[in-house]
Structure formats: structure tokens, C-alpha cells
């Protein structure tokens, strides 16, 4: 009969992030083939990501080389800061986008001297909401929380803190001025999210805790190329 139609129900069960996830898996595998690991560094704006990386580069100078993919809404100020301390850094400006995705990272990586590096740090856009939802191809995620923020921040931003492999409490030198921040309360909030990741308390300014941080970072060094199949995070 002309004009009649039928309704077809089609079951798909396709992840909407499938395209990004495939690119991210490619980034991870490519880095692993080069004997490299990547860390996704997340925090709210102003928690001290770039300052920590500057201090890290000074601490590890001559023995462990970082390269940085720097995500920002605009300006290349952070990448310029890192270059001044001898860290190869490429700036990715996301315009109005609130996060890096795997495609942006994949395009930026060839601009780093990968053969000379021990570790790639992906410094994400300062934002604890959107970046947490996008796999950028890193092998591990670190979330920074400074003592000038609330110690209940993990409860407010469960996405970022639930999947972190390490939580860094930064700006510990300001602890005396921020005595309402209790590391134990921050830790309890992280545990409530079902995350058993370690917490590290440090100050990039005073140097306190930097040794432990650098040990954690250098411990991520990839096994000899070819032996690693993919992500170490769940």
C-alpha cells in the first residue's frame, strides 16, 4: 500500500566517545612503542600545575627529561615559562573549548623531540569538570589540589578525583595560612569516591615533598619499548 511505513528499532550500544577513545588508544600505543609514558595533569585554574612542572624540571635536570603538551584556552604563557627552564613545551590553545582531547594531543606530540624524552606531561586546561571526561591518551592521571582550595573539593568534582592515579596536595608552604585545609579530610573524600590512589603533599616553592613526587614520576618510566601493550589505568 503506497504511503505506509514501518518502524524499525535498531539496537546499537555504541559509546559516544568511541572516536576519541580510538585516537587516545593510538596515542598510548605510539608512545609505548617509543618507550615513553604520558601523564595527564589536571586541576582547577591556579592550583600550581605549571609552577610544579618548573620545579620538577629543575629537580630532575640532567637525569630525566620531561616534554610538555600545554593546554590553555588562549596564550602560550605557560609553554614559554617551561621553555625558559629548558623543558620542550608545545602549546595547544583550545579557543573556547574547555578541555584537551586525544586528537589535539596527537597533533601536538610530533612537535616535541620525543626521542630525547623520558616522559610526556599533558598539562590539561585548568578545569576540573570537562577534561575529566576526555581520554587524552595518557597512561596515568594526576590531579592537583592546592591548600588554598577546599579540602572537600574531591567530593565536589568526583569525575576528576575518582579516576586519579595520584592526588597532589600543592602549595603546602601556605598550610599555616590555610589551617582549615586538612589533608586527612581531602583523603577521606578521595576514598569515598572508591579511589585508593596515594596522596602526596608538596610545595613547589619550598621544595618540600618534591623528592617523593620526582620518585613517583620517574617510576613511571616505561619498560623497554615493545613490551607494553597499552594503558596502565583501568
Amino acid at each position: 500500500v503506497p504511503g505506509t511505513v514501518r518502524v524499525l528499532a535498531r539496537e546499537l550500544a555504541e559509546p559516544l566517545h568511541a572516536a576519541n577513545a580510538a585516537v587516545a588508544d593510538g596515542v598510548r600505543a605510539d608512545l609505548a612503542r617509543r618507550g615513553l609514558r604520558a601523564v595527564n595533569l589536571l586541576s582547577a585554574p591556579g592550583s600550581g600545575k605549571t609552577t610544579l612542572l618548573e620545579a620538577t624540571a629543575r629537580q630532575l635536570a640532567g637525569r630525566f627529561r620531561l616534554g610538555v603538551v600545554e593546554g590553555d584556552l588562549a596564550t602560550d604563557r605557560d609553554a614559554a615559562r617551561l621553555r625558559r627552564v629548558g623543558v620542550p613545551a608545545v602549546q595547544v590553545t583550545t579557543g573556547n573549548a574547555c578541555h584537551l582531547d586525544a586528537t589535539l594531543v596527537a597533533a601536538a606530540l610530533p612537535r616535541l623531540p620525543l626521542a630525547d624524552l623520558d616522559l610526556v606531561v599533558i598539562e590539561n586546561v585548568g578545569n576540573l569538570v570537562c577534561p575529566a571526561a576526555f581520554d587524552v591518551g595518557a597512561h596515568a592521571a594526576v590531579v592537583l589540589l592546592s591548600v588554598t582550595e577546599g579540602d572537600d573539593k574531591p567530593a565536589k568534582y568526583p569525575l576528576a578525583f575518582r579516576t586519579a592515579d595520584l592526588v597532589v596536595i600543592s602549595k603546602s608552604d601556605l598550610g599555616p595560612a590555610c589551617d582549615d585545609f586538612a589533608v586527612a579530610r581531602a583523603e577521606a573524600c578521595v576514598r569515598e569516591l572508591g579511589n585508593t590512589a596515594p596522596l602526596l603533599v608538596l610545595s613547589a616553592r619550598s621544595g618540600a615533598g618534591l623528592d617523593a613526587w620526582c620518585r613517583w614520576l620517574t617510576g613511571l618510566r616505561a619498560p623497554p619499548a615493545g613490551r607494553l601493550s597499552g594503558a596502565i589505568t583501568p
Partner: protein
Amino acid sequence: VHEAALCAALLARVEAVARAEGALRVSRVRLRLGPLAGVEAELLARAYALARAGTLAAAAELAIEVAPVRVRCRDCGAESGAGPRHLRCGACGSPATQLLSGDELLLAGVDLVAPAREGTTGVR
């Protein structure tokens, strides 16, 4: 903030499926969304209402099924229901849990309106 970009990708995929099936239009888009996916259902629905204009899904309803948050304990092995901010084991209280469900963002399926096959009885 990325709900609009997500809708564009969603509709591109929905239209591709509809074309491959020879559909005239899409009557329903079904999503399965976990509270830990990082997407607000209400924002997504608003973005979708704008993004669907001019596509085969221009009149298609967006049905969002919310997935439950469930965890498995690495210590005692129990599986339990949890909340998006409370993911300890419901049986022993351990924080060492693994997420079984709750972070999914899936295009579960689509309902398509297609021309009736010759010799079959369709619905008007």
C-alpha cells in the same frame, strides 16, 4: 560545556545509521547515560533540541535512560549499588572498588521510520 559538540557527533552517527537502513526519518534516539559520564542529561537534552534541526532526526524524541552506579569490591568481592559521590563497597565499606556501571555514555539505539516493504503490511 561540551554537550553541543557531543550532540553533533551523536546526530552524525544517528543519521548515518538511518541512511544505511534506508529510513525516511528517525522517531526516537535512545541514550544510556551514567551519572559519572560527565554529561548533564538536561543540558544534553537542550543542546539536542537545537542540534537536531535539519537532520533526519528533526522530530525525533531523545529518550535518556539513566544507568545505575554499581561497584565490585576488590577486597571482599561483593557487588553493590553506589552513588556518584559514594563509591565505597556497600558490604564492607572498603574504598578499593571497581566501577561496574555508571560512567557509560552510550547511543543505545534508534527507532527509525522506513518505507514498508512490498507485500508486507505497514503502519500508517
